[in-house]
């Protein structure tokens, strides 16, 4: 009897988590999947099994353009996040010697999270707007004669907003990976005559890869579904899949929105799987 209790114990311990997981994650996603085959008429949806919504999406120029646009944002945001996170983390992990200063500087990286998303978005206007600080500086320095318009309500602004928001999700895991690198490895490499660049290439980058992979998963999934930043920073003029879905939900076209959500989920899963294939993040956990 005692033995069977021992066998059951782990299952029982996992049960609450599993139930919550099933109820609040798996079940809703299944519902979305089911609804994506339903029909709708502007105010109501009727259970059915039709591929119309999917055909609609795959045959439309707009969805194609919107998906491409979303991938463009993902690529740019991911690339910039990596480009910023690597030197920042390197500096924090290897150049700062005192632990207290390191913690302080790391906390500084969280500043973007100290205010609400909406407030942050609004405060870009006085900075980047036509009469904003940047434009005033450029005009006063006589660098431009007309205010620069593409600073706000443009792809530039969208990417800037998202990098600003999500960079920390890349910095944190990369920094974590770098901190775990055994310093004696570097000393050994140096002793054997490796240059600074070779240390970076042969030791630091490979050992940081799992952190980059985890950061990439965060950044890619967050950017794929992004719609608030796209709407506010793009001035409503730019499209992303998330924004497309939100317009469709706003117009009560749930089945179409569901179909888009399923496709978006698939794309995201493919990308995450791809990342996991390239890098073994088990090492990190």
């Amino acid at each position: 009897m005692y033995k069977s209790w021992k066998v059951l114990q782990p299952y029982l311990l996992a049960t609450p988590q599993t139930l919550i997981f099933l109820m609040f994650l798996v079940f809703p996603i299944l519902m979305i999947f089911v609804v994506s085959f339903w029909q709708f008429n502007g105010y109501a949806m009727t259970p059915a099994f039709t591929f119309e919504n999917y055909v609609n999406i795959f045959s439309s120029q707009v969805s194609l353009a919107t998906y491409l646009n979303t991938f463009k944002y993902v690529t740019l945001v991911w690339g910039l996040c990596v480009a910023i996170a690597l030197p920042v983390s390197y500096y924090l992990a290897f150049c700062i010697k005192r632990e207290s200063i390191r913690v302080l500087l790391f906390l500084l990286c969280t500043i973007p999270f100290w205010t609400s998303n909406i407030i942050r978005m609004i405060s870009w206007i006085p900075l980047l707007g036509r009469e904003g600080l940047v434009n005033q500086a450029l005009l006063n320095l006589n660098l431009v004669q007309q205010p620069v318009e593409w600073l706000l309500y443009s792809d530039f602004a969208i990417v800037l907003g998202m990098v600003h928001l999500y960079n920390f999700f890349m910095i944190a895991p990369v920094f974590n990976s770098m901190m775990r690198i055994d310093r004696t490895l570097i000393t050994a490499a140096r002793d054997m005559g490796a240059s600074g660049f070779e240390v970076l290439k042969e030791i630091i980058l490979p050992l940081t890869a799992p952190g980059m992979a985890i950061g990439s998963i965060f950044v890619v999934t967050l950017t794929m579904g992004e719609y608030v930043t796209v709407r506010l920073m793009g001035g409503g003029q730019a499209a992303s899949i998330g924004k497309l879905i939100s317009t469709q939900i706003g117009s009560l076209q749930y089945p179409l929105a569901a179909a888009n959500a399923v496709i978006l989920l698939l794309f995201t899963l493919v990308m995450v799987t791809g990342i996991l294939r390239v890098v073994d993040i088990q090492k990190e956990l």
Partner: protein
Amino acid sequence: MPKFTRRRLLQTGLATGAALATARCGTPNNPAPGPEVNTNSIKDVTLRFIGTGVAQINDIRDKAQEDLGFKIELKALSTEENNQIAITQPGQYDMFDGEYFSLPLVIPSGNLQAIDVKRIKSFDKIASFFTTGDFNGLPVETAQGTAPIKVMYLSDQNSSEFSATPTDWATLIPFQYNADTLGYRPDLVDKEITSWADLFDPAFNGKTSILDIPSIGIMDAALVVEAAGLMTFGDKGNMTREEIDQITEILIEKKREGQFRAFWKTFDESVNLMSSGEVVLQSMWSPAVTAVKAQGIECVYAPLKEGYRAWGGGIGMSAALEGAKLDAAYAYMDWLLDGWVGAFLGRQGYYSAVPENAKKFMSAEEWDFWYEGKPAAVDMVDPFGKTLEKAGAVRDGGSFEERMGNVVVWNSTMDEQVYLVQKWNEFIAA
């Protein structure tokens, strides 16, 4: 050693499950159905409202609770969320505070019940374009779009068909509405804006905006392209697929030319765009103009020669209301038309469904300014104590009759709504 066996575990598990299942049947929101005891006093009632921000104001709720004696809960939502909840979550509200153009979507859901107009005291005094469709022979009588009169009445109590002629069964009791137009910054625009076509004026390239809500945005866009002579419509309020294709094409072309600075979706976005100078000319709602002015920035709500786009909001009752709650709902609607709310909203520039009742609660100077289009004899102060207009100012567009009489379209839900949203997305994504 604990006395657990598989059998025992199974028994306990099943018992717990059964107990949980039984308990769930009696959650507070879902009381066990039983004979209704009809001694409920109206005082014990709580009416739950959903609506857009305009009238979901605590001051109105507090006054209503004080005057009527029952409780009111407000939930302020965006236009889109409001429709969604009205259609998909009937259990969440007792009273629907929505717009007339939502009705072609909400009524077929069967979630609202017909309002017996005989029980509404001031029904006959409601502005006539709501109740009969007439208004002194002015253009509003033939306005296109989802004009309230087209969706005001149901053919009978249990019908979900709209009646073209007045019946005793109403869908919504109106209480606020307005005529919308373009707003502009006279300090940044060097000419007077007199036509919707000015939105496409190359002089304002990169400095205009329209709103990104399909049912409303498309009507503004239609007024613009028609005024600019770019295309004509059979009925702007109910476009054909070809017309939707054509107007989207024009809009996309203008977007590519860089005519628009941004699109806005919420009231505060439009205020930010205008007050920051990012946009100098855009479609706007009247309280947004007021909000810009309140920051000390000049903003004109331009009367245009083609006329206005109007919207109308009213109160509908959930199909589930009965007994004391139903009585409370009727009491609320009578109170709503009685004038206090009309005056409250009037001081922000909205019109009341029964102007003559609102007049009783407004000062003569307020009435003259907001409804008669006369110069303000004293400073105009809104219900929250903010000065909106200095003495001597005149309301843009003039009197009630001049403004509401010149409405040429109402916000619309078209037969081709699904297609419209699809094309609208195309425009946004282009």
